[in-house]
């Protein structure tokens, strides 16, 4: 592979050995992730936006997360080990990482490590435990899938 796939390149053969495999652009991935969420959550197409939060905007519940993981695995032919996308009890009630509903700097770092696909810019301004849910946006899931596909290639 001589050039790194960028967002603007489509249908780029990655394997010179005659096995033509199209590289998905971020837009392609987003479109598929959106369609997956529409199926899993019974949404209208226009409800899904990049910044839409799974719980608070799209009404997802715990059982939906399992369904979403199964569908993403099938849709993108990837393996998602338990808790890799939706970690449970991410800070484990550890007083070093969370106190009085607020996330400590150590906790923020833990989240950054466990959820490299999440965008922490807004979260860092006011890191509360409740706000952790808001990290799970359609955009974040798209990034997660993109990272999985990149490591697969």
């Amino acid at each position, binding site marked *: 592979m001589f050039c790194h796939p960028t967002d603007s390149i489509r249908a780029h053969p990655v394997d010179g050995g005659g096995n033509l495999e199209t590289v998905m652009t971020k837009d392609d991935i987003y479109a598929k992730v959106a369609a997956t969420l529409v199926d*899993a959550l*019974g949404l209208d197409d226009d409800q899904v936006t990049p910044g839409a939060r799974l719980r608070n905007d799209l009404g997802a519940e715990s059982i939906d997360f399992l*369904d979403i993981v*199964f569908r993403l695995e099938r849709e993108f032919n990837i393996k998602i080990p*338990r808790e890799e996308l939706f970690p449970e009890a991410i800070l484990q009630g550890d007083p070093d990482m969370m106190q009085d509903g607020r996330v400590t700097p150590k906790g923020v770092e833990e989240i950054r490590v466990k959820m490299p696909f999440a965008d922490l810019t807004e979260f860092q301004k006011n890191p509360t435990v409740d706000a952790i849910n808001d990290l799970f946006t359609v955009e974040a899931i798209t990034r997660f899938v993109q990272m999985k596909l990149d490591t697969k290639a």
Partner: protein
Amino acid sequence: MRWIWIDRFVDFRPGEKAVSVKNVSFAEEPFGEHFPDWPIFPAALMLEGLAQTGGILIGEARDFKEKVVLAKITSAAFTREAVAGDVLTYTATIIVLRDEGASVRGTVEVRGEKIGEAEIFFAHLDANRSGTMFGDHNFVFSGELKYLLGLARKANPRPEPEGTISAG
């Protein structure tokens, strides 16, 4: 009330598909109130029948190692009512079967016409958690449903894997 909403398995292919029938009887409880002057069989109970059919299919595929719980009706659509005297045929096929859960597609037919379909998502609870959280009566396969499965298995014996030494 006995919470068994299927009467008999008519086809059972382990790990793949199960077909059951439910005879709708005017004597059943729901008709008392659903609805006065318009007695129709509740769609929710057709979903329950599909869930029981699919749930047994899932449980059997994993040797009933875990408790199978109806977790989510992902989608459901019904095009006609079912009424007393109808024989409902429930067909459940496995879409995905994993350690943590499974998804099943179900259809409801009356006299060869599809009147409903649904996608049903099940969660698997391991024996430890489920024992402490829920009583036995909450689960898909009570002894009654396993009995129905037993009848189906007698009609369609599961082929032994090659090379198996039969325990006799």
